[in-house]
């Protein structure tokens, strides 16, 4: 029988850092089939019917949480949801205690978002369940990076050789770091662009280009990934005003039309319309923002499916 037997090299998905190129390809190939499943009249398969997954969100989220939950339900897993604001965390319970209590209810997998970098790694060392990182502080957001790269692959056929500019609040962005790692593994070139205050020092050591002029960055790239200004993480002022930021780094139709080529516009969401991107750009045909959301479910199904198989 010519059946290919393959598995991921990791038991948890904590960051893109731990994935091999082959892992990423395997996730993409699996996501292709799940995308197919999502276009069927009945969008559900029974693969994970004996698995229980807890979605633990210590930070707000709409898209990621909804996307994970849909992916889990499409795979027939049992799902419990938990958000910190309405839980005993506000009564002083520690992370390990909270999660151990949830695990005592026989949960196999934990999808976690946490405001501190490394929370997922910490948990994976102390807890007997598979951890999927749905964002830890300004560190990593692996499924977002995977779905971004998957969307680029879908649009261009491959990621290799593409030029991607990540524009905006790189300093506070976990999407940026995961994207840089993922795109580099797949052979793309990456540039980060933003005001000096929002570009981390020494980011060049990751092998990315740094540019402070929006127009130059747009002229260089094939794909522009616009990041949101994360005001909730900014304890000090990084720029004089949102209006000024938007004048210098906001993407509008005028700039887009002034380029001598057609670039693709991406955004991990949520969009601040009129700040980093104007409505006419976000809704234009160059924007693949909604494709990213659609692909998110397929990518998360692939990740859950492949990780579930790692359990022994």
């Amino acid at each position, binding site marked *: 029988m010519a059946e290919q037997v393959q598995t991921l090299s990791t038991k948890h998905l904590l960051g893109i850092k731990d994935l091999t190129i082959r892992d990423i390809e395997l996730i993409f190939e699996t996501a292709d*089939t799940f995308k197919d499943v999502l276009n069927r*009249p009945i969008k559900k398969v029974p693969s994970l019917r004996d698995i229980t997954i807890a979605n633990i969100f210590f930070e707000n989220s709409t898209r990621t949480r909804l996307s994970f939950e849909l992916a889990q339900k499409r795979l027939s897993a049992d799902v419990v949801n938990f958000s910190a604001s309405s839980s005993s965390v506000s009564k002083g319970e520690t992370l390990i205690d909270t999660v151990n209590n949830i695990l005592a209810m026989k949960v196999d997998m934990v999808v976690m978002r946490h405001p501190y970098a490394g929370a997922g790694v910490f948990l994976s060392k102390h807890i007997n369940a598979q951890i999927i990182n749905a964002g830890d502080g300004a560190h990593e957001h692996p499924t977002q990076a995977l779905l971004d790269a998957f969307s680029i692959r879908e649009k261009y056929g491959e990621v290799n050789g593409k030029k991607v500019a990540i524009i905006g609040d790189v300093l506070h962005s976990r999407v940026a770091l995961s994207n840089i790692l993922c795109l580099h593994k797949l052979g793309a070139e990456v540039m980060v662009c933003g005001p000096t205050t929002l570009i981390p020092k020494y980011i060049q050591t990751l092998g990315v280009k740094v540019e402070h002029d929006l127009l130059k960055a747009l002229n260089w790239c094939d794909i522009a990934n616009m990041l949101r200004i994360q005001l909730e993480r900014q304890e000090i002022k990084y720029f004089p005003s949102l209006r000024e930021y938007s004048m210098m780094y906001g993407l509008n139709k005028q700039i887009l039309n002034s380029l001598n080529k057609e670039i693709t516009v991406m955004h991990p969401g949520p969009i601040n319309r009129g700040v980093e991107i104007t409505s006419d750009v976000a809704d234009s045909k160059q924007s693949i923002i909604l494709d990213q959301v659609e692909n998110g479910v397929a990518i998360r199904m692939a990740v859950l499916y492949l990780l579930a198989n790692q359990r022994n």
Partner: protein
Amino acid sequence: MQNLILLDGKKFQITIQRLCHQLIENHDHFTNSVIIGIQPRGVFLAQRITEELRKVLPKANIQNGNLDITFFRDDFRRKEGLLLPSSTEIDFIIEGKKVILVDDVLWTGRTIRAALDAIQSFGRPEKVELLVLVDRRYSRHLPIEADYIGIKVDTFNSQKVIVSWKETDQEDKVTLLSER
């Protein structure tokens, strides 16, 4: 390993043709019937059957698709490794149709069980039939039987039945492999 050829050459061709004629007996011009090969190995047989049928019934519109059953298997996480899913290509409506599922070898019946589950995602067929090239008798784990059978063989569990195709393996044949 000891190899025993169960079917090849002219006899292989005759068997395929007989299966086609049995299908025609029950489905006339295939106006309300579709042929679906089960991934990965059933698609070659489904393709061959469709080609033969098109030769015999040049005017008929015979629809052929592939069905992947990976996500419907009952051994997920119960065995080593992971089977990579193949593509599902069903570009027609199954609701109310007579579906002929095609696979190369019928053994435990578990694949067919998964296929019956998987096909439901596309609608409610009027009827589902099963066509196999090789029936490994007396080895079923489930109450599943085929409607059209190429050859029946008696085998041990330790043996393997391999169907090779001209398109991928140079030669049409069915081989029985036994551990010595």
